[in-house]
Structures are given as C-alpha cells and as structure tokens.
C-alpha cells in the first residue's frame, strides 16, 4: 500500500505529517519550519503559496487570499456580514463562493488545493517518493458540504482523501498515543477560524467520541478583527483617517493586531506602531494584556457554551473529565487557559505543540488506514442531526447529532396521487425545528413507478460514512430493484465541476512548473551577468579587444533573453555567454593564482 500522509489544512497554517517508526512527525520545509501559511497570492510570475505569499498580504491585498477555509462549502449569503473584512473580491456561482484573483476566479476548494499541492510537494521532496493518498482534518463541527468541499480540494490537488477526520479527535489520537491515557478527556480546539470541543472516552486503544460541539465561525481571526477594529477607531478619532479605504493599510493593522495578541501571551504589555497613509505619520500606543483581555472577553466566553452543551450531550459533569487537552494557536492565550481551567476545574494539558498535534494525529489515522497501527481505533460521531423536510416546512430528524458514524437510517416513501412518478426529497442538517433554520444539504427526486396512490413503497437509505459524508441509496420494496440517485448539493461543486477543476489544476501545475523554471532561469542568468560584468571590469586589460566585444555581445543577448518568458532561451544564451567568456575566466584565474603565489617559495606551494 502506498504511503498515506496526514494533513492539517488550517485556517491560518497548514502542515503535513507522516508516521516514522511508530511515531508521527511533521515534515519541515526548506527553511526548517513545518508550517505553511494558508495564503495564496497572485503575482506577476503566477500563483504562489505559503511564506512567500504571506509577504504579499500587505503589498497586494486584493490579490492575496487568506483564511479561505472560512468559505469552504458556503454560499455568499453565509458570509455577507464579514465581506467588508476581506480585501479580495468574492462572488458566487451555482451556490459556491468564487474568489477573484486577477482575470480569473477560483472556488475555495481550488484555493485550498493550491495549499495542499504545496504540502504534497513538500512531502514528496522529503520522502523521495510520489504522494497520492492522504487523511485531511476538518473542524469537528463542519457540516456535510464543508467536508465534501475539503474532499474536493484533495482531489483537485491530486491527493485521494481516504479519510476526513475531525481535528479534535485527531489531536486526541496523537495525545493518547504519546501519553497512553485512559479515561475521559475533553479536547478544546480553538484555532484560527473555528472552535471545536470534543469529549472522548479512551479505553484500551479505542477512542470513542461521546459528543462534539462547536462554532465553525469562531477563531483567532475574530480576536484579531476585534483588536484591529479598536485600533481603527482610535486612528479615526485621533487622526481623522478612515483606513478602511486603504486595503494595504487595513492588512497592516490586522497583522499588527495579530502580532500584538501573540506577544501578549508572554508579555504583560506591548508597543503598537502602524504607519499611516499620505505622510500622516504613525499611530502608536501601548496595549496591555488586561486591555486585550477585556476587548476579547466576550469572544472567549462564546467558546464556553458549546463546552457546556457537549458535556450535557455526553451526560457528564465537568468534574468527570479526567484530562483537558488544548489544541490550536488561540489556546496560547492566558485568558483562554484560565477560562477553560475554571470551567473544567482542572489544569489543562498543553504538552504537545498545539500547532502540530492535529497534523500528528492525522498521520496516526493514516497509519491505521494503511494497516501499520492496528491496536488503535477511533469511533467518531456526526456533529449535526441529519433529516429531511416534511410537510409544513418542518425538519424530521433521521440521524441524531452525536451518533457514532458510520450511521444509517431507512425511510419508506409512497405517493399521494394516483400515477405520481416522483417524490422530491430535501435533505437537511441542523438542530432546529423548521427547515428554514437548518442547513440545506441537497435535493433529489425519487423515481416512482406510476401506480395508484399509496401503493409504491420506496425505501431510501441515508448513510453517513466514516468521514461524516452522506450517501443516499433507494430501493423499490415491491420489486427489490435499487435505483441510483442523483443528489444535487445545495452548496457544493457537482462532480463535473470537480473534474473540470482537476483538469485545470493539471494545467495550473504545468504552468506552475513553467513559472518556476522561468524564475530559476532568470535568477541564474542574473547571477551569471553579475559575475561576468565583474570579470570584464577586472580582466579587460588581460584579453584581446575582439574577445571583449564578443563577450559584451553575448551579455546583451542574455539580458534580452532574461526579459523574455522562455526559460530555454535564457539557458541557451547563458551557455553561449559561458562559452564566450571562458578564455577570460581562465585568464583571470591564472592571473589571480600567479599573484597569490608571488613572493612564496615553491616548497610552500606544494
């Protein structure tokens, strides 16, 4: 079985990990850092991802996408009230958000695929083999559409997603493996964009999730936004500048807010400095940890309600939780740790790096799937109730939230009218009574043979697989024949669209390679030009005039090729120049050798 890697596709950062000699470890990049910022930027040389893209956040904010995870599996209406916070332009096509970058627009799974491809390449470079299979983590509270969108992103990136696994449960796998824990644990996962709480029972290698709850729109992003808003208000009052009309400055404020928040996890106060536009000087102030805490207190409080609900669903009192595990960068905040400790009445654990633990757990799950680890098994649950629309716009629940997956429910359908040939079925996810308050997942039309009313009996099976993704099948109870069902997702890409995107992504990957070759050729050419110019100035007196002219001609030719877009042409002109300038280099080498030997005895040289 080919190797399966574990991937944490985060709102802010993403990581890839694998199992090495029974221990999960993260794969570092060239700089040694395992984290890839989940940022994609469109530059003059094409699309770039990660650290280099992050630099473009303030340089070209309208062409730099961050926090794309917030848009996975969503329509534009879902994010209406935060559109103002994003400097890039969002539109919608067929229920799916599109992000405009230059001339083109991309769906969130396509942007996520670019991040995944970066991780894939990183893993391939590190392991020296082709990587095509993966386990990818998602927030536990992600609904079907968001999970499906994540799976699509994997496909587009050329990674088969063998399992979608919940982030807090992934963390529990890594944690449980390291600490050989038994008993009840709560995983409090507060990341860049999402919050999850999961309560698990660990017993003899079985990780049974008892309940899960959360908020897919609550994370470090919201903290940064709150802090940034207070800076913007002060700037507006003090300097009469509305920075919201300056996208690059808005990004600078957001990043300064994020950095200040991070510093205040270790320090009690910090200095803020933001350059103002149009030569209006700079905004400076001191921010104390106390001030920060009172600014964001209510956001932190919002994480506690899901915790209480999860405890309630698990039928446990806080005191019955043996250990509390913290996951996600936002749990570094002392205020978060304090509130969690108060709620559960015990000191939370943070002994595994909260940034890496999810990716490590994904690697453990990958190893279980490939048959390496056989003594551990994760029994996860579905976070949301699944149901169908019934008369009066009411949702009838078929699979309750916190049901262990895989889970299935069967429902028998018949007709109202003689000769009716179809029944429309609307699938929903959520906890509310009315259809309109729940999430529409999909619709399909059940085919029914034309018979008198009430005679047809079609049994529909709704199956949530181990990924928490819905599969629907139907069979005619009278004939025993099964029928295929064409489910149309309410907020997702159709199979055709995904296929098209996979195709585009191959093109993109090729363009990507071409762009990379061009950049490398240009850099190499630049280096050669610089050294040749230096040789010319050093050695002009040592060689004949016609040779100097030939070298200068070759230099001009290379400079011209460098301005073009053909890496092959650049390489050819480089070869020409190297060939033409060779006598000069040799002469220079001889000359410098001679000079260094001057005044030395032969015995010293040999």
């Amino acid at each position, binding site marked *: 079985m080919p190797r399966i890697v574990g991937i944490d596709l985060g709102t802010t950062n993403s990581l890839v990990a694998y199992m090495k000699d029974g221990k999960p470890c993260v794969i570092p990049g060239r700089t040694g850092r395992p984290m890839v910022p989940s940022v994609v930027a469109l530059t003059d040389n094409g699309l770039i991802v990660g650290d280099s893209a992050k630099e473009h956040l303030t340089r070209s904010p309208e062409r730099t996408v961050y926090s794309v995870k917030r848009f996975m599996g969503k329509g534009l209406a879902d994010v209406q009230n935060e559109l103002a916070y994003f400097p890039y332009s969002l539109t919608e096509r067929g229920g799916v958000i599109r992000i405009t970058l230059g001339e083109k627009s991309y769906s969130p799974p396509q942007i996520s695929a670019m991040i995944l491809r970066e991780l894939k390449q990183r893993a391939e470079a590190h392991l020296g083999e082709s990587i095509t299979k993966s386990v990818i983590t998602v927030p536990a509270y992600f609904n079907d559409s968001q999970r499906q969108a994540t799976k699509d992103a994997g496909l587009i990136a050329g990674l088969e997603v063998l399992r979608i696994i919940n982030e807090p449960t992934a963390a529990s796998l890594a944690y449980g493996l390291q600490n050989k824990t038994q008993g009840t644990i709560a995983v409090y996962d507060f990341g860049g964009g999402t919050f999850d709480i999961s309560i698990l029972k660990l017993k003899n290698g079985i990780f049974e999730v008892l309940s899960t709850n959360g908020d897919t729109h609550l994370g470090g992003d919201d903290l940064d936004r709150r802090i940034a808003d207070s800076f913007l208000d002060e700037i507006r009052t003090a300097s009469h500048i509305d920075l919201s009309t300056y996208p690059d400055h808005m990004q600078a404020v957001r990043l300064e807010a994020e950095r200040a928040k991070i510093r205040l996890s270790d320090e009690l106060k910090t200095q803020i400095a933001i350059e103002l536009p149009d030569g209006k000087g700079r905004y400076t102030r001191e921010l104390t940890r106390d001030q920060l805490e009172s600014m964001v207190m209510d956001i932190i409080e919002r994480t506690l309600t899901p915790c209480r609900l999860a405890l309630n669903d698990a039928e446990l009192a806080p005191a019955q939780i043996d250990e509390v595990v913290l996951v996600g960068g936002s749990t570094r905040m002392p205020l978060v740790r304090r509130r969690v400790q108060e709620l559960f009445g015990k000191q939370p654990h943070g002994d595994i790096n909260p940034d890496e633990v999810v990716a490590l757990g994904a690697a453990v799950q990958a190893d279980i799937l490939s048959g390496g680890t056989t003594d551990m*098994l994760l029994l996860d649950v579905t976070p949301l109730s699944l149901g169908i629309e019934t008369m009066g716009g009411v949702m009838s629940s078929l699979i309750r939230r916190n049901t262990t997956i*895989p*889970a*299935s*429910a*069967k429902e028998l359908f018949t007709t109202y009218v003689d000769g009716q040939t179809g029944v429309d079925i609307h699938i929903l996810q959520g906890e509310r009574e009315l259809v309109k308050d729940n999430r529409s997942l999909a619709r399909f039309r059940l085919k029914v043979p034309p018979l008198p009313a009430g005679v047809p009996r079609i*049994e529909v099976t709704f199956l949530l697989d181990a990924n928490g993704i819905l599969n629907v099948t139907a069979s005619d109870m009278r004939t025993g024949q099964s029928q295929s069902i064409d489910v149309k997702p309410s907020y997702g890409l159709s199979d055709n669209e995904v296929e098209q995107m996979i195709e585009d992504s191959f093109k993109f990957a090729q363009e990507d390679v071409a762009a990379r070759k061009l950049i490398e050729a240009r850099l190499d050419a630049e280096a050669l030009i610089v050294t040749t110019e230096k040789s010319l100035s050093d050695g002009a007196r040592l060689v004949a005039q016609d040779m100097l002219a030939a070298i200068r001609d070759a230099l001009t030719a290379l400079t011209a090729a460098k301005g073009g877009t053909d890496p092959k042409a650049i390489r050819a002109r480089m070869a020409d120049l190297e060939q033409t300038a060779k006598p000069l280099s040799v002469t220079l080498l001889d000359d410098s050798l001679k000079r260094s030997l001057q005044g030395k005895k032969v015995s010293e040289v040999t």
Partner: protein
Amino acid sequence: MDHHHTHNTGSRDLRMARSMCWHCQSEMSGEYFCERCVKVQPVSKETDYFTCFGLPRRLTIDLKKLEAKFYEMSRAFHPDFYQNKSETEQTISLGNAATLNTAYRTLRDPIQRAEYLLDLEAGSVKDIRTSPPSDLFEEILELQETVEAYRASDRTSETGRQLLTRLMAERQALDQRKQDMEHHLQQICTDWDSLQDRGEATSQARTERDRLLKQMREILSNRTYVKNIVNDLAATIG
C-alpha cells in the same frame, strides 16, 4: 410529500436468509466471517440487536460487558480496517459498522432498549400520545393555563415572577413523575426477564407476558408525553 417511519433495522420488512458465503459460496457456519475464506459477511437483516451482540432477549444488561462486546465487534467491522480489501468487503464493513452502531446505541439506553423489545415482541411502532394520561389530566390542563398566563405576562413584574416560580416548581414535580415512571418501568423489565428465564409455555405465562408488554407500552408512551411537556416547559422558562 408523504413518508412513514420504519424502524431503523427494517428487520421484518426484508427477509433475506443468508446461508452461503458471498465469496466462496460455501455453507456459512461462522457468525460474521466465513470459516473457509475468512471474508466478512453482511449482518443478516433478520438478526435483531440482542442476537447481534450474542445476548438473550432480556431487559437487564450488563453495560460494561455490552461496551466490551461493542468495542470488540467495532475492531472486527470498522471500515478503517478494510482500506486494503475489495470494494465488496468495504461495502459490507460499512453496512455492518452502521448496524452495529445503531444496535449499541439502542441497547445501551434502558428506554430505547425497552421500546425496541416491545417493537420486536408486540410488532408495533410506538404509541404516540396526544392527550395527557388520565391521572395527569387535571395537572396538565392547569399547567397549560399557567404557561399561557406566563407568556402573556410582563416577565419583570411581580405576577410574572410568581408565575415563573410556579412553573419551576411544576417542572420539578413533572421531572419527579418521570423518574417514578422510569422506576416502575425498571420493575416491569425485571418481571419480564424472570418470566423469560422461567421459560414456561403455559397459558398463564402467556397472559402474564401480554400483561407486561401492555404495561410497558403504557408507561413508555406516558413517559414520552411527560418528557415532551418538560422539554417544552424548559424552552419557555429557560
């Protein structure tokens, strides 16, 4: 659109006897795995949840043992362990794991367990009560009036506060009643188990069996009714 709830198993809807291994066609003797070719077999649709766990049809269950058996069977069926197997085996493992999870959830909870047994033994879906049980009639009627008055009242006023206090007391009383019903149900369950253990085939035993099932049904539907009232009340007063 019109639909009916069927029970999750669909146990009596489809009778497809399984006697041969789907893979090597040999006679099946093992329960879930073919003894000859070791391939996983789909859990038969005839298998009820008790049989699935190898338990007799009794209402007192050792939860520790049930959990241990559930974990053991999860290790046998979970799709995680079928990643390298054929597509057929993967489909079977998925279906079996889903059935196993439903079976465990049903038997783990004493109320669902009793409802399920009633369904198996008396072959009917739950009675859904739309009017209060006779011994609760007056109480519920009065409660509904108090709820209406509370809804119409100014919550911050003295009257509003008084009504709230009354409703909270009422909720506690109903909660207590629900617990009493659960105690009573437990007693009937014990009676059921000992009747089954005696295994008598007399007409007296049959009468006793029918009486117990009838009582079970009544308590279960009354309990559901009270539970819904308590939930609605909780939603109103927070």
